[in-house]
């Protein structure tokens, strides 16, 4: 047979031999080969030492509260608000300016970024409502209800009585 050690492609055969995972027929052939090939024999001896050393590396016991902590995280995630879920879509949990996420699952700077995105979406959706570049917005009254005007005048009268009129002299706002 071709020496496995000389052909790297067949080296896995030696690994399997050392781990006793080969068929009996192939095992017997290799055993015969190793009687004549010192390199393969040395490989086998060294590999057995590696297996034994790795076997000695015993695993540590799992923490008793591992499951409890996991279910706590699952419950917390399940009850997360839609807000957090939206944020998670845009901001992977690995990202953090401080190397660690906040208790709520997202650091404040990233939360601020999300707020900006939401506000920007609102501005784009309703462009007429908010425009920071305009100087004093002009009230455009397209349709005025008579009782609405009367209510407004009553409110202004009340404000004058309490001396709380602003420097703008209480122009009726567009929202009224």
């Amino acid at each position: 047979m071709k020496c496995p050690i000389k052909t790297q492609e067949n080296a896995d055969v030696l690994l399997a031999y050392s781990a006793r995972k080969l068929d009996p027929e192939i095992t017997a052939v290799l055993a015969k080969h190793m009687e004549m090939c010192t390199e393969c024999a040395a490989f086998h001896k060294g590999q057995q030492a590696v297996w034994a050393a790795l076997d000695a590396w015993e695993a540590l016991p799992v923490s008793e509260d591992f499951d409890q902590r996991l279910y706590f995280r699952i419950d917390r995630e399940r009850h997360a608000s839609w807000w957090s879920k939206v944020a998670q879509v845009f901001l992977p949990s690995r990202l953090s300016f401080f190397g660690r996420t906040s208790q709520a699952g997202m650091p404040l700077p990233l939360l601020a970024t999300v707020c900006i995105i939401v506000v920007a979406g609102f501005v784009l959706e309703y462009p007429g409502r908010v425009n920071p570049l305009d100087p004093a917005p002009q009230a455009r009254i397209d349709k005025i209800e008579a009782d609405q005007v009367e209510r407004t005048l009553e409110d202004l009268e009340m404000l004058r009585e309490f001396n709380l009129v602003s420097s703008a002299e209480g122009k009726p706002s567009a929202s009224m």
Partner: protein
Amino acid sequence: MGAAAALDYDAELMLRVKDGDGESFALLLKKHRSAVIHFLYRMVQNRAIAEELAQDVFLRVYRSRNTYEPTAKFTTWLFRIAAHLALNSLRDGRNEWKQEHLDDTSEDTPNRQLPDRSPSVEYRMVSEVKLEEVRQAVAALPDKQRAAVLMHKYEELEYSQIASVLNCSESAVKSLLFRAYETLRARLAHMA
């Protein structure tokens, strides 16, 4: 036949989780928790980080329940997640300053379970030195070689499974293992 039946059982359990069966998730957790934690511990060599990463693994399994499809063995999928998180963690260097040492007496360091063959102090010291050699030899391997060795040796995954986990070909896995074991033989052969 036994392995195939186990495969079907794990996939069956995960499909039940997909249908909302929490008990099935608990069964999967109980069955695979230790293997995942031990793999991660040997990868990052820090118990706290290993358990944190293991929590991330099972959290991702849970999150993926609605889209889960049994296109591969459940353990392959599970260790793909674990290996991905471990390799990311190592790349991010989270455990550079946290690597445990045998002389660490902090409360986080668990009591080591040494073979109960002899009560002699000398034997225990020799065992601890050997264990430290093994840990350092494995830690010195490149990340992918380390992952391949741990999955091959401790989890006994097939080459095809390891290839799927590491997203490479089977020949690449054999090459990883060949180089990894060659390095380990050079460092640990004197322990024979």
